[in-house]
């Protein structure tokens, strides 16, 4: 039943904004002179002590009126810098070359006044990290009103007027604008906007902030909206609503959209055209459907292949070997050449030509573009650009992995609690009689929110319930997934298991014996559980080297120096970190490497259970793939049990055996992943699943949660 989602079926398009019909966009490619935006040979460099950082290295593309263009690429490849250049907001130290023609004005050469006009009128931007894009000390009504005011009178901006200094500013004018702000909030789908205009950003939920940021951008009625990763910080349901909103705006206002993302499924969902960037360069452009279905550039292809949803369960994920080149490196040839299996000497030197694929199919900057090559099917198992990497496990040949989207038993159970008692096991695992390793019974956790002497004297004790009456068991050797929206209590639940928090009520048992918090646990129990924290970098003391960090738990078990060193070398090798990394400090490591160190430390004392809190959420797809592969190898090798927390359902679906769904501290559903994902019983699970964007847009037309949906409105609560 996973098949349909992974098949490139050429069915009909029911969403007008998304159109894979390539011919529609022939006139709107980069070469067109009537474009709203034309970027030509853009180069942005930052000074650094050694070589300058080439953040953007010769980028050209265009956007036509009313077009939705996706800008994709891994982290650090220059997407945000490009976007900032378009609105002329490069940091002062940046050196910008090339031309950016926006509505007939060259942004790079524009005067301060021209820029103000452009920003107030033509282009708006929703910045990455929208949680931080709203001024925390001004209410949102004022922030929006300000935008409309600039839009109306871009040239007469008096400080006192904007400060609302009495006598100098017209109150009536501000009042009117606030009313208009409420209308805008309404348009982006914020409930009771008249009240919300008086709210401060911190009083809004993440999803609402995103919407306000969009409303802010829309206030000046722009011709082009640039949205930089507008959905990375929000959970799946909110993301779905936001994408819907974009499509709607594009439809009704004819507003062009430059959507920056590293999430290819978002592109598939929304975009007309895609620009793929790699290491500061554009490697491929073209209609979204074509690029996703039939990528021309090896990089695009590799990127698509890394996605867990395109690979079968328990299948090894394809990865891209190597790393994104250092932006300070002197470059020649194709930047992807060092990682490209098919690279030739030509690729490594000189300029690589940009080839027009013709037929409105876009361009690719690669020698190896074979127009006649048949489209690669999405789900061809085992398509890898490279044959894995250092952590490849000879015992698990990717191509031979079991293809077991096994015949599921939909009738196995209905609710979470019954499921655990029935000991339903996913069939995908071979082991037949697993024992519960950890059992939680009626576990509740409340946090006290008041403290201090006086409060104690007054007896004031406010509490917040983070986990409510949870029954759960983790069975030996399985991977249990824990999913749910932000703040639903996933991390707290994990901390209860590890002992960092003690339950307010209920009992936790390890192998049948009740255990308490860290302080009261025996050394063996502690050694039995390994933890990889949600943000692994924070769990590594920046003052210790990798070696010391990994050896720390061994030292506390009384291991000798020699034995410790031996073990450290073994586990580092096992997670794919080279010997010389042992002397590095955490800040010298990349995100993927830090994650490996954290995993190495967790497995070093030879635990049976590892708790993984969002192990891949901060990583690029290719790195994510490698870590996920590593985890499954380690599990197979050491017989580990995983408790894996993630909000990325694709990841969960790919790796876990059973999944538990949490909502507001409660466990609402639990069961084998296939069963839960295919036949969810709880309405919350249904909403959650429905909001997953798919690479093949056709499917998403089914259940789409809307802002008015009962469940999703639970997400509209304050962020803190």
């Amino acid at each position, binding site marked *: 039943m996973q098949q349909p989602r992974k098949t490139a079926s050429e069915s009909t398009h029911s969403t007008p904004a998304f159109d894979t019909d390539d011919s529609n966009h022939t006139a709107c490619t980069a070469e067109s002179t009537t474009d709203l935006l034309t970027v030509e040979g853009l180069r942005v460099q930052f000074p650094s002590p050694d070589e300058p950082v080439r953040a953007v290295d010769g980028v050209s593309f265009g956007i036509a009126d009313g077009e939705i263009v996706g800008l994709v690429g891994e982290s650090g490849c220059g997407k945000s810098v490009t976007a900032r250049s378009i609105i002329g907001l490069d940091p002062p130290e940046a050196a910008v070359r090339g031309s950016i023609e926006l509505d007939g004005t060259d942004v790079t050469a524009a005067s301060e006044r021209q820029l103000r006009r452009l920003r107030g009128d033509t282009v708006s931007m929703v910045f990455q990290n929208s949680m931080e894009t709203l001024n925390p000390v001004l209410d949102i009504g004022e922030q929006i009103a300000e935008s409309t005011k600039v839009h109306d009178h871009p040239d007469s901006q008096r400080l006192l007027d904007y400060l609302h200094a009495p006598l100098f500013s017209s109150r009536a004018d501000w009042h009117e604008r606030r009313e208009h702000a409420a209308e805008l909030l309404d348009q982006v789908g914020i409930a009771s906007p008249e009240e919300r205009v008086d709210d401060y950003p911190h009083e809004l939920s993440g999803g609402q902030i995103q919407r306000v940021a969009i409303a802010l951008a829309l206030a000046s009625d722009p011709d082009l909206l640039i949205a930089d990763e507008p959905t990375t910080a929000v959970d799946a349901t909110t993301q779905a609503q936001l994408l819907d909103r974009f499509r709607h705006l594009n439809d009704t206002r004819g507003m062009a959209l430059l959507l920056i993302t590293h999430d290819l499924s978002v592109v598939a969902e929304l975009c007309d055209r895609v620009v793929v960037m790699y290491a500061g360069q554009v490697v491929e452009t073209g209609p979204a459907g074509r690029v996703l279905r039939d990528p021309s550039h090896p990089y695009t292809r590799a990127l698509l292949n890394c996605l867990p949803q395109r690979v079968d369960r328990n299948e090894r994920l394809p990865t891209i070997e190597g790393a994104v080149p250092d932006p300070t490196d002197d470059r020649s040839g194709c930047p992807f050449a060092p990682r490209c299996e098919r690279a030739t000497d030509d690729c490594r030197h000189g300029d690589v030509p940009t080839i027009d694929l013709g037929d409105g199919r876009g361009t690719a900057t690669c020698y190896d573009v074979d127009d006649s090559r048949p489209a690669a099917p999405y789900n061809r198992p085992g398509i890898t650009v490279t044959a894995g990497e250092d952590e490849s496990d000879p015992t698990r040949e990717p191509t031979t992995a079991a293809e077991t989207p096994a015949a599921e038993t939909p009738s196995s159970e209905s609710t979470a609690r019954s499921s655990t008692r029935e000991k339903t096991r996913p069939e995908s695992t071979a082991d037949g009689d697993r024992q519960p390793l950890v059992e939680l019974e009626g576990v509740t956790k409340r946090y006290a929110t008041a403290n201090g002497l006086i409060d104690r004297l007054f007896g004031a004790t406010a509490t917040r319930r983070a986990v409510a009456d949870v029954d759960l068991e983790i069975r030996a050797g399985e991977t249990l997934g824990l999913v749910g929206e932000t703040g639903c209590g996933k991390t707290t639940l994990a901390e209860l298991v590890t002992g*960092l928090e003690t339950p307010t009520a209920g009992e936790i048992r390890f192998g049948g014996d009740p255990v308490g918090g860290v302080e009261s646990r025996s050394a063996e129990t502690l050694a039995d559980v390994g933890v990889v924290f949600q943000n692994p970098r924070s769990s590594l003391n920046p003052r210790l080297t990798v070696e010391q960090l990994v050896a720390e738990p061994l030292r506390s078990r009384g291991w000798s120096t020699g034995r410790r060193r031996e073990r450290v070398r073994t586990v580092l090798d096992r997670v794919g970190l080279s010997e010389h990394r042992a002397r590095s400090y955490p800040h010298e490591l990349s995100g993927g490497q830090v994650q490996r160190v954290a995993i190495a430390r967790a497995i070093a004392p030879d635990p049976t259970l590892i708790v993984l809190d969002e192990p891949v959420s901060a990583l690029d797809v290719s790195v994510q793939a490698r870590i996920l592969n590593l985890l499954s190898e380690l599990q197979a090798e050491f017989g580990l049990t995983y408790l894996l927390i993630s909000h990325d359902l694709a990841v969960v679906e790919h790796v876990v055996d059973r999944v538990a769904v949490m909502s507001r501290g409660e466990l609402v559903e639990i069961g084998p992943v296939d069963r839960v994902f295919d036949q969810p019983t709880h309405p919350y699970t249904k909403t959650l699943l429905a909001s997953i964007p798919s690479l093949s847009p056709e499917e998403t037309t089914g259940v789409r949660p809307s802002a008015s949906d009962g469940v999703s409105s639970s997400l509209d609560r304050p962020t803190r």
Partner: protein
Amino acid sequence: MSGVLGSVGTAVRRRYRALRTSRKVAAFCANPLNVVGLALVVAIAVAAAVGPFIAPYDPTTQQLTNRLQHPSLAHPLGTDQLGRDVLSRLLHGARLSLGIAVAVTGIRLTLGTTIGLLAGYAGGWTDEFLMRLVDVQLAFPGLVLALVIAGILGPSLRNVMLALALVGWASYARLVRGTVLATKERNFVRAARLLNVSRFRIATRHLLPTVAGPVVVLATLNMGTVILGTAGLSFIGLGAQPPTAEWGTMLSDGRHHLRSAWWIANVPGVAIMLTVLGFTLLGDGLRDVLDPKRDATIEKLS
């Protein structure tokens, strides 16, 4: 074999350490003000170390016939109202003034850090009690309390130092406790607890190094405050007893001659100013390098 490996390891480690430090050194040097601060502090320290040996005259010998001499070759910074060589007094005073600052800061730091660690680590009622104590100390404007203490104990450098030390420790206690509490909740400490790392090791390997940075910064900034505090108390009449050459006292004594013999007051004045400036700049620089995010906190405490 393993010996070779070990020594290679040590070498590599040293290189990495060096790299790490050199990055900090580079960051420190990137701001010319930091370098100015360091240079000033080094200069003062050198003056304090060798000053008494290179001073041309005895700092207390009077020459009434030679009083109030303008700066000249014989007396590069002139002579004072009793015909003493101002340069010699300045050089001798450097050791004393710096010594006071170091001693007072040292006491504050030791007392404050101990109390802060205790409060942060012990928690509960100990914490509650110690922090109320800290609150009480902080509720007094520093100089006001120092004035009362020194005034009641009587004027002498020892009492001034005691008074200044008694009013300044609470900042350290707060800073240290705050850092300990924050660090205790940092994930790497939580992780260490999960990994069954002993309490002692958590304290020494994880907490102390984190506390050291801010404390050093605060101490550096504090040096200036102490020097100014000493000068203020000297002015009120609680400074060093004559004929001791202490900068604050020299400045305070010389103020009557500001119009007629500007050098008597302005020379120690400038010396104090440069010293305080030096320590403040150095402290700022260290803060940037060691502890970039705690600006407001330290500002509030220093």
